């Protein structure tokens, strides 16, 4: 009887371990996500993690999660930057946008973002539409200016830091 109880305990333990592992996979869902040495934005950056990367949660502390990346690196991520569902891959015919083809490599995305957005001026189709419609030059120029404005990841980081927002919030680095 005692033996059976031991088996039972082991079985239940195994079951809970398996459930725990299955439930602890997360996907990086935000652009510009960095793996931190501690649960604080001010701590050392271990690596950049691209959108769509799978991570395993080891520990949870407030709005921060200790995770292990696919390449085996361990560190902390701000919980707002991960999701329980895998983000849908964006099929963007050549134009990766401000952060580039993040799904492929975070390094490429950083390089691309630093050199600025690849979209400049009206898209060819919209320019042709304006031509067809005889859209006044003034509005084409206005939209041109709007499309040319860019926000680099570095500017964004500084902005969040100065506003003490999210992972840069005061008191234990956003731990609430």
């Amino acid at each position, binding site marked *: 009887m005692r033996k059976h109880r031991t088996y039972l305990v082991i079985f239940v333990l195994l079951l809970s371990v398996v459930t725990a592992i299955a439930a602890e996979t997360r996907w990086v*869902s935000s652009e510009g996500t960095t793996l931190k040495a501690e649960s604080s934005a001010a701590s050392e950056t271990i690596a950049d993690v691209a959108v769509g990367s799978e991570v395993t949660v080891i520990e949870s502390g407030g709005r921060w999660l200790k995770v292990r990346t696919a390449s085996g690196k361990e560190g902390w991520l701000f919980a707002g*930057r991960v999701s329980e569902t895998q983000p849908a891959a964006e099929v963007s015919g050549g134009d990766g*946008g401000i952060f580039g083809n993040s799904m492929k490599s975070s390094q490429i995305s950083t390089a691309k973002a630093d050199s600025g957005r690849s979209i400049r001026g009206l898209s060819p189709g*919209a320019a042709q539409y304006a031509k067809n419609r005889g859209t006044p030059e003034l509005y084409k120029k206005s939209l041109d200016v709007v499309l040319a404005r860019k926000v680099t990841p570095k500017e964004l980081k500084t902005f969040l830091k100065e*506003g003490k927002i999210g992972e840069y919030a005061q008191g234990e680095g956003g731990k609430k």
Partner: protein
Amino acid sequence: MKTVLILVCLILPLSASTALAGFFESLANPESKEWKIITGATQVLSSTQEIDYPTERNIGESLALEGLQRFGNPVANEQLQKYVNLVGSAVAANSTRATIPYQFAVLDSQVQNAFAVPGGVIFVSRALVDILESEAELAAVLAHEIGHVSAKHALKSTRRAQFFQGVGTITAANLKGDTGKQFASAINDMQGVLFDKGLDKEMEFEADLAAMEAAYRTGYDPSAMIRVLEKLQKLEATSREKKGSWFSTHPPLDERIARLQTQLRHYPDFAAQASVKERFAKYGRVK
């Protein structure tokens, strides 16, 4: 036999209760799959996935040109425009569609409105920015519009979706001639949806929920969305100009507020998140 029975008796309720506990725990977690399914915040793929991004962008920018003519040019205040782009980019990075470029602009319009065109260009009127009092409130408005872009609401709403799918990639070359005429007609139809008729009610609620989620993920107080709607509610009573505003193109404000208040329960620490009033007072004022 007895042990088997004990096992069944023990494990069944145990596993059922852990499963249930897990489910309720998930519901308490705003990032959980279960919660998203219940609130309908998960992105559902539809036929619009066949429209590629350059085409979506061509459609959106064409609509943006019409929007500018209708609501006015951007306010000539570079500091304000840059600020709005920073706030917008912050929440966009935590939206369900973070990998496309977004651009934001404040238009010189006296009607309280904000709208997004496919592809990521988002406009907000100076009249709407004028009634806001914090960065979190601006973030909420912009995140609502990002929600429409993420879920491709405008593309899903056009009766000309078949035209876009049939024509494939829209390029400058194929907009010369007959396709160009059909394209213009499709843009005209979408204008009617975006600027006059408004999107489907459920799409608006979906954008509201998405806005709260993206704002909270970024670290902004998600209840700011409710405060914006309450301000609009006060204005609605006295406003004469309702045409083309958030009053006329969006579902009744009390209904939106009620839904958001229910949603707010998923963010128990909402009040501890950032509002950022000082910086908004410095850069977010339309001069």
